[in-house]
């Protein structure tokens, strides 16, 4: 007795790759930073990350139920959104704020736009922007890492100095306003690289993020063009500023390792859904992100600009795709 013989268009074989596997790779790539977050912020890190992932999964499940669509939880994209959002929240954030952010990310930014693949903005970043607007104080209160000793410079202006700490970028901003010396900010570069500094849960350790990013590059989960162009353009702008006025602007290394630059370059700007498709477009997108980050950091009022830079370029990426069309291998056809 023969099986059912099926027909379909060619090809009849396919690579052993699924969306789920792509998402799983991103999660694996985030593991080093999650470990770093646990080391530096202990229980708070676990609490916030689990809350965000759980809230994201639950919101997606409910949305699928309401839309009467097949469940999409097993593609793991909600887990990735939850993790990225959790990683970009301050450690001391109240749990209910994290839940609100997660629900906003999944329901408003992702599912209302049509679910996976249809969202215009990176859900985690849009949710973070929403939280920044609604819970401004909670979103800018930075806890001292559990591993910090008292040698770290503590911002005198911040009131109960024991629980809050200035981030390297806050120092850099002070330096720009001539309230501090850029050298003081630069002295935090090593801590910014290893992660022993104040900041969002997942962004503090540039080293862990680079390890995860390299994993993604090796697995070809992300294309190298976006991280390269973000880091190169941001590096170039900060280098120029630093060379011009070293006493006012922090060093390019601090800008690259500080704040959300690394997580932005490797994990957020590379979100394929909200980035352009073509190589040319990806370069343009990355340069835009890197440039805007530095514009906000050096000129704007905010000390950090990754979130807004990514959101602005997300909005532009359909247009970039339209502009940067691929030219066929055989050249443009003569019509």
């Amino acid at each position, binding site marked *: 007795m023969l099986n059912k013989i099926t027909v379909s268009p060619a*090809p009849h074989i396919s*690579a052993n790759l699924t*969306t789920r596997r792509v998402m799983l790779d991103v999660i694996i790539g985030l593991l080093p930073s999650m470990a770093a977050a646990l080391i530096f912020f202990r229980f708070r890190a676990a609490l916030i990350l689990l809350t965000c992932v759980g809230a994201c999964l639950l919101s997606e499940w409910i949305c699928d139920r309401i839309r009467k669509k097949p469940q999409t939880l*097993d593609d793991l994209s909600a887990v990735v959104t939850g993790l990225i959002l959790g990683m970009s929240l301050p450690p001391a954030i109240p749990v209910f704020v994290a839940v609100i952010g997660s629900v906003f990310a999944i329901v408003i930014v992702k599912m209302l736009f049509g679910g996976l693949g249809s969202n215009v903005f990176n859900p985690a970043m849009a949710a973070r922007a929403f939280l920044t607007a609604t819970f401004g104080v909670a979103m800018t209160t930075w806890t001292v890492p559990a591993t910090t000793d008292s040698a770290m410079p503590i911002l005198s202006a911040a009131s109960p100095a024991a629980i809050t700490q200035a981030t390297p970028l806050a120092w850099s901003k002070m330096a720009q306003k001539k309230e501090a010396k850029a050298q003081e900010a630069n002295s935090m570069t090593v801590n910014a690289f290893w992660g022993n500094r104040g900041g969002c849960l997942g962004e503090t350790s540039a080293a862990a993020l680079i390890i995860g990013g390299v994993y993604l590059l090796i697995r070809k989960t992300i294309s190298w063009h976006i991280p390269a162009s973000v880091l190169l353009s941001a590096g170039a702008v900060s280098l120029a500023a630093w060379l011009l006025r070293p006493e006012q602007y922090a060093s390019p290394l601090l800008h690259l390792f500080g704040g959300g630059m690394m997580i932005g370059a490797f994990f957020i700007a590379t979100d394929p859904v909200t980035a352009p498709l073509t190589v040319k477009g990806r370069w343009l997108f990355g340069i835009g992100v890197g440039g805007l980050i530095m514009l906000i950091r050096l000129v704007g009022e905010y000390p950090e600009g990754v979130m807004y830079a990514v959101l602005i370029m997300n909005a532009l990426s359909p247009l970039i795709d339209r502009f940067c069309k691929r030219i*066929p*291998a*055989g050249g443009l056809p003569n019509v």
Partner: protein
Amino acid sequence: MKLLSKMTFKGGVHPLENKQFTESRAIEAVAPPKQIVLPLCQHIGVPCKPVVNKKDSVTAGQVIGRADAFISAPIHSPVNGIVKDIALAPHPVIGRTLGVYIDTDPQSNAPRQPAANRFDAAFDPQAYTPEQICTAVQEGGLVGMGGAGFPTRVKIEANPAMPKDTLIINGCECEPFITCDYRLMLEWTWQVIAGIRLAARAAKCTKIFIGIEDNKPQAIQALRQGLSQCRLSEEIRVVSLKTKYPQGGERQLIRSVLGRQVPTGGIPPQIGLCVLNTATCAALAEAVVFGQPLTHRVVTVSGCAIARPGNYYVPIGMSVRDLIEHCGGLTESAARVVLGGPMMGFSIADLSTPLTKTSGALTLLTIETSCCAKYNKQRTACIRCGRCLEACPEGLNPTKIAHAVKHFRMDRADEYFMSACIECGSCSYVCPAQIDLAGYIKTGKLLKAREKRRLA
């Protein structure tokens, strides 16, 4: 010459080669079945009209269909027998078409043996004029046997409007599983070389290259040895190419061998090239030297779902069912019958579909070997990862074209150069969301052609 070994094109994919099933199986002649069906459209161009009637008796090599058009090729009977019927027959590519059913004469049904041992190094192509060669090729019903089936005479005949100077022989065989051209290059070396020399003489090409993927070192060596025995190593160069799909695509092959690019929407003769498949060259030698029309060809029967995989020399018109039976039948796990290779072949449901001049392989896949074919894996929305862009050998944007077609926006599909797609299927192969991009693009081309016809 530059470094010869890793010449290649941009893009492409590398599926599991799976040639181990049949690469060491010698070509085996198969006896004609009781009945054969010859579809009257086995080539690109004007379909043939039957020139025999019901109940006529025909002999092997007799013309049974032809058309009075430049781009066409006559069709011959591979067997002695009686025309049973002229009726609709299943066709692997175009669904249904008129076909001639012939009942084989039971008295003369011994398998025809290939003519390869009648060629040797002493062969002299100067004995034939270009006109003689072209006429023999046309009368022999030769078409490109690599898959497209373009009439060979049109390709090789010297054309003053587009003079050709370079002949490229396609021995890549980049599809997984298929080994028919490989065996042919190994076993029929002299015949292939004779065919190449005749084709070059007809086309008046002085530069000749044979492109072979570097996973077939024995074939490369066999041809190089043969050529040096004929003292032709200087004129005909065997080029080793990187093993990558679709290395055997005409445009990709040209890119890899010469570093030149056929313009989008253009054809190779525009830049002075002619590309022929190795099997076509072998058939050409037979047609010119012995007047033997194209009635038999080598077919690889492979895959995990067949009892006795191998390379078979079969009469054209034999049904898939008869060939499967000859090979010991399907195994229980068979899930898909593909005429052609797994990347570009046509899956068929009707096993009475006949083999045509362009069927180089019959691939029998199980659910497991078809990589749990797309349909068994979880399908998601496009995540815009860009893998299809990277894989596209023509530098297109498959996901944009596919989505335009999905929403019936043919204008948008054209903006992304839908018609430049060579339908190699690399995009579908790599897609992590399991979207059948190539399927959408093929549908889009059909819809566009239909629209054009309606407007005309």
